[in-house]
């Protein structure tokens, strides 16, 4: 097999799929990308057996066939060539030659038949959604996913579709992020899937901030997202996601409304002297005053006061300052609303202009 291709036409799809290639593979074939050619398109596939990413370039090709090539080496070669270079690729037995100008590389190939493909996915439900909408939904929640928690079902993002609403929920057991968007979908009973962490990261990398539609296919064991020239498939985490409705508190209690930027700066300032590991800070609410306090193991202290409108009960409660800052960073709203019942109950954070998102943070006992 022999074909030629413009550097950019190979580089772009390679960059799209490279995230799926693990740095340390269990199977030799997983270090490679599968390149498929037919008359009018070139398809590049990468997988780690957990996720699969496919990128397509539609153009007339001067050959047909399938090969696999070492993913990172091929990417590095493409990157290193000058812009607009023409790349000639020819395969002979288990060797492939990449030639461009006066540079020539010989790479080892593996047969395309060795390249693993994910199981066929059986669609249970499908819907379409603008890329920007899905992206925003995921961005506003994914940061709350657990990392390597023994409760493996928390190490991912839960998507739930039903009743014309798509919801994304992530929690690490200490805090929870919830976001919903209306979508054009007629499913009545809701369907839940949990996308593993790595898949969430790669999908977010693919999604553009555009109104172009993406087709989402939910299977029993997979989620697949199709765009015009890319396809993303991920296995799902097989587990029952905790009942988020039970932990989102009612919107009643001591309410603080405060400028987002001001709170963010005050928290960041206080956090300098919080314990580096536990990140605990104390929030003290009194008549029209918010006090933030931190103390580190060396007994150094920070005290920051902010004037606010507050006529609720005086209250003293501890929080992980990182959890609060991460929530504040999800929004560009001017104002944030915090509802705190007491020092042992969760705090609900919301942005009045963005009521679709709800953030729940459990306090710290200090």
């Amino acid at each position, binding site marked *: 097999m022999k074909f030629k291709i413009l550097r950019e036409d190979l580089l772009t799809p390679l960059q799209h799929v490279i995230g799926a290639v693990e740095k340390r593979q269990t199977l030799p074939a997983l270090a490679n990308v599968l390149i498929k050619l037919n008359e009018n398109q070139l398809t590049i596939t990468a997988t780690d057996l957990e996720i699969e990413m496919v990128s397509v370039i539609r153009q007339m090709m001067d050959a047909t066939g399938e090969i696999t090539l070492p993913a990172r080496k091929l990417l590095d070669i493409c990157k290193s060539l000058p812009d607009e270079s023409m790349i000639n690729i020819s395969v002979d037995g288990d060797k492939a030659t990449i030639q461009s100008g006066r540079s020539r590389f010989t790479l080892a190939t593996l047969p395309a038949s060795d390249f693993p493909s994910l199981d066929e996915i059986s669609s249970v439900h499908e819907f379409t959604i603008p890329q920007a909408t899905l992206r925003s939904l995921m961005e506003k929640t994914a940061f709350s996913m657990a990392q390597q928690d023994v409760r493996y079902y928390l190490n991912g993002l839960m998507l739930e579709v039903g009743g014309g609403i798509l919801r994304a929920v992530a929690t690490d*057991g200490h805090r929870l992020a919830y976001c919903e968007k209306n979508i054009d979908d007629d499913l009545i009973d809701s369907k839940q899937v949990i996308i593993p962490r790595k898949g969430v990261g790669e999908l977010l990398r693919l999604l553009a901030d555009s109104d172009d539609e993406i087709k989402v296919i939910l299977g029993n064991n997979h989620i697949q997202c199709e765009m015009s020239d890319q396809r993303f498939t991920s296995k799902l985490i097989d587990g029952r996601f*905790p009942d988020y409705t039970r932990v989102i508190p009612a919107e009643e209690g001591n309410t603080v409304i405060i400028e987002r930027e001001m709170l963010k700066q005050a928290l960041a300032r206080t956090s300098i002297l919080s314990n580096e590991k536990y990140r605990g800070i104390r929030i003290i609410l009194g008549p029209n005053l918010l006090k933030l306090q931190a103390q580190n193991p060396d007994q150094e202290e920070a005290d920051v006061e902010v004037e606010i409108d507050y006529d609720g009960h005086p209250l003293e409660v501890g929080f992980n300052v990182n959890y609060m800052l991460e929530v504040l960073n999800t929004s560009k709203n001017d104002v944030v609303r915090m509802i705190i019942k007491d020092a042992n109950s969760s705090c609900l954070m919301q942005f009045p202009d963005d009521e679709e998102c709800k953030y729940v943070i*459990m306090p710290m006992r*200090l």
Partner: protein
Amino acid sequence: MQRRKIIHIDMDAFFAAVEQRDNPQWKGKPVIVGGMPDSRGVVATCSYEARKFGIHSAMSSSRAYKLCPQGVFVKPRISDYQQVSRQIHSVFLQYTDLVEPLSLDEAYLDVSQLELFKGSATLIAEDIRKKIFQKTALTASAGISYNKFLAKVASDMNKPNGQFVITPEQGEAFVAQLPVGKFYGVGKVTEKKMHEHKIFTGADLKNKSLQQLGRLFGKSAQYYFDIARGEDHRPVVTQRARKSIGSETTLQSDIKDENEIKHILQLLTEEVCVSLRKKQLCAKTINLKVKYHDFEQITRQTGLDNYSCDERLFFNVLCLLLKKTQIGKKPVRLLGVSVSDLGADVLSSSFVQLSLFDDKGD
């Protein structure tokens, strides 16, 4: 202070002996327990027949195979050994509660207070070895002395199936003639360093002042100073807390690339931190172990100012330690990460992050 009576019991070629016991056809044959010859594993234990060929523990299995191709190579059955180890331990407990296990096949017993055999530690040791044999059909050797250091040295003197006594009167003279390499706590590196300073025997060591030793060996100086005089005040500790938590891996093939090595270190660090968290512990010292392709092994360590179980911190410290190795220049065969100086994080008690979900329901 009353002289103590310490017995060090050491099973003879333990893993290999268990294998020979359970597979009678291997009796009298060189049995090598550990990695398979075609693997990159090492010898864990080998039978006395195998030792005649020059095989010893920690040697690579492939090398052992070259020395003795007719040897019986067996994969370790750790759970079986653990079971035998429990049997042996139960024998110890028939004599005293003051038992400090060192590993599956070794333990110190403090028998100072025993009235059995009119308090003769020699006879007690013989009786213990007899009981172990009755119960497990395996032989043990014993060292009897007035401290742990000498008891341990002594158990090696009449191996296998023998015992040796070092009395308080003999202690100093015994240590004086002992090559420093035989001292417990003196590894190859320290031995070499001692040789460089013309310290070859216990007597040479004794000629050095504490200050001289301090300059050479830092914290360990006091220990060397004491043992050169046949003194070792360490008590028999019955329930030792875990001293370190670690994880290591022999690579599938030798690796030179620093980034790949970092990636593996990251995985090892994760494992270590998961175990730390499970035990609710924090650590103050981070150790990196590297075995190069030529089997040269080095360890590097750094102490932290505070207890921590922060994965990123550990990883960053390890990356700094890498600079003190030949990683990137010399291919690496094995990587290990461990943390020591363990302690419960005192701060954790004052910060309790509450959970969203009660642990039962979810």
